[in-house]
């Protein structure tokens, strides 16, 4: 015991040094446990102990990476067999497309697998992400989906450069964001009117989806999770469900493609037949090649819309006197579009002209399901003030507010590709003199008629009970309605914020005056100066509050007000779709009645009237199919319009909110400047 005291203390040391060094590479996990025990006993081992721990940590991710690889591989196989089966069962019983779909599916099964094997890197990436979040709750899944979307986006960029091979990934990416339910109806409707529109529209929708902001992606992604459980038989883990969903969508995407463009499909089949063993590259190239082209075209088109037409409304000017006075605005257009007479157009328009334009546009376009941007509302009170000619602050504010609203209105109109083509819009921007818009006066007979029309519309809207065939529309309408409510609430909040800020500014001004008075009666000179400086600072802050209140209003509140009205227009376009549906249903009922009448005639054996009844049936059959086509067309337009609207909305909100935040930022900067200038004054008090 006594002599080897130093030896015994050194022995464990040796252990500590030799032990970990030998083992960590072989068995890091168990080593760390042992290591930690040792770390408690000897302080010197602590530093050494850290190294294996880290190694153990890095080992785990490796496991994660290797494991999912096997898992996802297995999944791929099971689901590739699963997916087509499901497609068959879900396919509507229409003879022509189903054959194509079926045949297409047969071909697709293989390329799909191939592509997934080719892009195992992506798969692994995604799988790793999913495995990482298996333990997490369902909420996390949304973010995962979101993350995937980003990944896919990155892929997309690459894919554009290298069209063959992985090109098929692109539709998948887009559809991954869309609700899978949509794909079928869309394919259905597009297949039928196989006219010039069919080539363009289906491509259009994915494009929209594609470029959509993550803001709108979220609900879509959420929807995508829901059906995930249904197609995949094994719902053992959530990640599995997600994977199968992805693939299902993938399969559906190709189905859609084949339905949209039968010619394409045929070509595809022709291309594939000779080269059965390696169908993957040829399929993907032939089916997806036309798409990116159109995509780019569309994007270009959009850019043109955005940048080549610049409209500003300026110089509000009072014309005339008394109650007949009105405000005229200068509408200047700058454009390179060939459809206009010249590159620079300037006209003078009065407020009712803008209203007239809206009336014309909404008459023409809203029955077709277009979202016609609403013109600013008439304000009798505000205008009367202007008319009476009081040159006070509130009427100036009113005019400026209206000018800005009119400018935004026109910009919205021309940014709409279909409305831009309208001759009335062109006339509005180009023509020197417009015929006076008569039906826009709020208190005129026409206005009264409009009110009655609106009332009857509202009543008929309530009576129509539409059994919605398409979940998308139902969900969107609900979304729009709840959004409307939220916006209204928020708008109220922002308005009261504006009012309170104004009040604050007034009170700050009063306080500034009072401090100035206090400063003047202060007998300590330094303190007196500091107080008057404080008064000045408060004065400036008052101005700042006032400016910020204006910003609150013009940037934020007006944006909200605009969108509240725009959401009204969106609802109106849903109503139009409902009306079209109602007409179709009425037609069908009528046809039914006619048929019954014919049967009765047949029963009563009255051949002389039979012919007439048959003619009528023929006529009504024609009408019903016409109505049905109308309804389908309106539905498609509404869908497209809502997509467009949402995209615009996201962009608008982002832009405005950034602008608003920047205005806040500016205020804070000023505030800092003022107070920093004041600080030495305060310090100078002695």
């Amino acid at each position: 015991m006594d002599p080897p005291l130093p030896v015994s203390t050194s022995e464990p040391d040796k252990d500590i040094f030799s032990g970990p060094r030998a083992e960590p590479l072989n068995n890091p996990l168990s080593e760390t446990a042992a290591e930690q025990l040792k770390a408690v006993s000897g302080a010197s081992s602590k530093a050494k102990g850290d190294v294996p721990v880290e190694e153990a940590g890095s080992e785990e991710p490796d496991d994660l990476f290797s494991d999912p690889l096997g898992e996802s591989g297995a999944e791929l196989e099971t689901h590739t067999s699963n997916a087509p089966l499901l497609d068959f069962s879900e396919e509507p019983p229409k003879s022509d497309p189903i054959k194509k779909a079926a045949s297409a599916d047969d071909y697709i099964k293989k390329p799909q697998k191939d592509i997934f094997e080719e892009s195992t890197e992506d798969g692994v990436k995604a799988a790793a992400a999913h495995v990482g979040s298996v333990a997490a709750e369902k909420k996390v899944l949304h973010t995962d989906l979101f993350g995937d979307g980003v990944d896919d986006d990155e892929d997309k960029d690459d894919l554009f450069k290298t069209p063959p091979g992985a090109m098929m990934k692109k539709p998948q990416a887009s559809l991954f964001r869309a609700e899978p339910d949509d794909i079928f109806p869309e394919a259905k409707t597009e297949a039928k009117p196989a006219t010039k529109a069919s080539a363009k529209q289906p491509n259009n929708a994915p494009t929209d989806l594609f470029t959509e902001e993550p803001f709108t992606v979220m609900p879509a992604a959420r929807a995508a999770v829901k059906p995930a459980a249904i197609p995949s038989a094994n719902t053992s883990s959530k990640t599995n469900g997600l994977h199968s969903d992805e693939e299902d969508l993938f399969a559906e995407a190709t189905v859609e493609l084949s339905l949209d463009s039968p010619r394409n499909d045929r070509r595809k089949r022709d291309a594939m037949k000779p080269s059965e063993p390696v169908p993957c590259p040829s399929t993907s190239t032939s089916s997806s090649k036309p798409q990116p082209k159109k995509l780019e075209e569309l994007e270009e088109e959009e850019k043109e819309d955005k940048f080549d037409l610049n409209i500003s409304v300026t110089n509000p000017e009072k014309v005339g006197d008394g109650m007949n006075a009105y405000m005229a605005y200068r509408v200047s257009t700058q454009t390179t579009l060939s459809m206009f007479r010249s590159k620079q157009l300037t006209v003078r328009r009065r407020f009712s002209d803008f209203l007239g334009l809206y009336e014309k546009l909404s008459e023409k376009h809203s029955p077709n399901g277009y979202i016609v941007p609403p013109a600013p509302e008439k304000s009798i009170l505000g205008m009367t003030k202007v008319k009476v000619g009081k040159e006070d602050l509130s009427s100036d504010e009113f005019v400026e507010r209206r000018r800005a609203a009119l400018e935004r209105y026109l910009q919205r109109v021309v940014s709409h590709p279909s409305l831009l083509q309208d001759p009335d819009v062109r006339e509005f921007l180009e023509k020197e003199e417009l015929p006076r818009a008569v039906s826009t006066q709020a208190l005129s007979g026409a206005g009264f008629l409009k009110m009655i029309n609106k009332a009857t519309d509202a009543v008929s809207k309530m009576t129509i009970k539409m059994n919605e065939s398409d979940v998308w529309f139902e969900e969107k309408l609900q979304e729009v309605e709840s959004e409307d409510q939220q916006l209204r609430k928020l708008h109220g909040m922002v308005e009261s914020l504006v009012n309170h800020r104004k009040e604050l500014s007034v009170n700050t001004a009063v306080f500034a005056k009072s401090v100035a008075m206090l400063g003047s009666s202060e007998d300590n000179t330094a303190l007196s100066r500091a107080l008057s400086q404080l008064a000045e600072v408060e004065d400036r802050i008052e101005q700042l509050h006032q400016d910020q209140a204006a910003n609150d209003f013009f940037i934020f509140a007006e944006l909200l007000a605009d969108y509240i009205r725009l959401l009204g227009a969106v609802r109106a376009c849903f109503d139009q779709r409902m009306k079209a549906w109602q007409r179709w249903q009425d037609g069908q009922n009528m046809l039914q009645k006619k048929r019954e009448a014919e049967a009765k005639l047949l029963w009563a054996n009255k051949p002389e009237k039979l012919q007439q009844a048959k003619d009528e049936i023929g006529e009504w059959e024609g009408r019903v199919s016409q109505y049905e086509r109308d309804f389908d067309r309106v539905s498609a337009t509404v869908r497209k319009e809502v997509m467009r609207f949402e995209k615009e909305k996201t962009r608008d909100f982002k832009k405005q909110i950034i602008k608003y935040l920047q205005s806040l930022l500016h205020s804070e900067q000023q505030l800092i400047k003022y107070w920093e200038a004041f600080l030495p004054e305060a310090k100078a008090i002695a």
Partner: protein
Amino acid sequence: MAVRLPVVVRGGKELLCSRFLQLRSVSVDLNNDTPLLIDIPDALCERDKVKFTIHTKTTLNSFQKPDFSVSRQHEDFIWLHDTLVETEDYAGLIIPPVPPKPDFESPREKMHKLGEGEATMTKEEYTKMKQELEAEYLAVFKKTVQVHEIFLQRLSSHPAFSKDRNFQIFLEYDQDLSVRRKNAKEMFGGFFKNMVKSADEVLISGVKEVDEFFEQEKTFLLDYFGKIKDATAKAEKMTRSHKSMLLACTVTTPKIAELLEKLRKLEARVASDQELKLTELFRYYMRDIQAAKDLLYRRARALADYENSNKALDKARLKSKDVGQAEEHQQQCLQKFDKLSESGKKELTSFKARRVVAFRKNLIEMAELEIKHAKSNMSLLHACIEQLQSN
């Protein structure tokens, strides 16, 4: 539910008190090198009573121990103030103004509302409201403790008051002082006294001032009092509208809700800091000036007494009756007046210096806080804009 809630929140309050300790910086260091150091390290809220723990460190031998703590209520402070006012010897001194009654009425009212609305609110709303309430409570609490502390520190730093027997009892006596609250008669008496005083003030304002210094001081204080009262009211209004502005933007879209929520909280801090630094300063000096005015009144009263006694002496001499007595009285009055004038002069000069120092300190602190808050607001906005622009 409604019964349980106040308990919960009160639990939060007690927690607040200890949390508040860490937050609070030493607010006034009037007594750095004095032999008497006083602070209020803790305070406890029980129903409508606030118990302040008063901690004293001293080197004076008049105290039994060098380091001790006692628990006092707001009423005890009032008692101390009143005894000081009534002490004849202190007539020539500016008696530090009594701290205002702790006003927890508005947070309590809100708490009540919160308790009622608990069923109708979502959990997030409830927690948010509760947090707000706690913040508001904290602000009031901070203010109350600070103002009581300042009162004691002013006393302890004053050469005459620090030796006052009642003050020492207040600090040292480890039992409850059990000061009874004023009853209705006394309250009315106080009110009546005030009336008489202000009437008297008007009456003796006709007395010709003999010392120019006091004449100047008087006009200045009167003027200043009016102004500062006005400024206080305006500042109160300003901070109030600042706060109500914050209430306006409570609900927002989820997208930028988080940011706006943070901004709102910061803005609330700005408002409460502004109140603490500026409005409180004004309020305090409003009261202090009132105290100075009281001093001037007492002096003017003494002067009037002196002149009256002069007249009485003249009369007595005319009648040659009780001349000795009148002479004595006149001498007494003169002495008293001279004493008051002398100490009053000193007091007013020191008051001026103190005021300037306090204004300087508070103004600097406020400017610094404003800058600090604006900067953190800016960084928040910056981060948010960048985040928005990147996606």
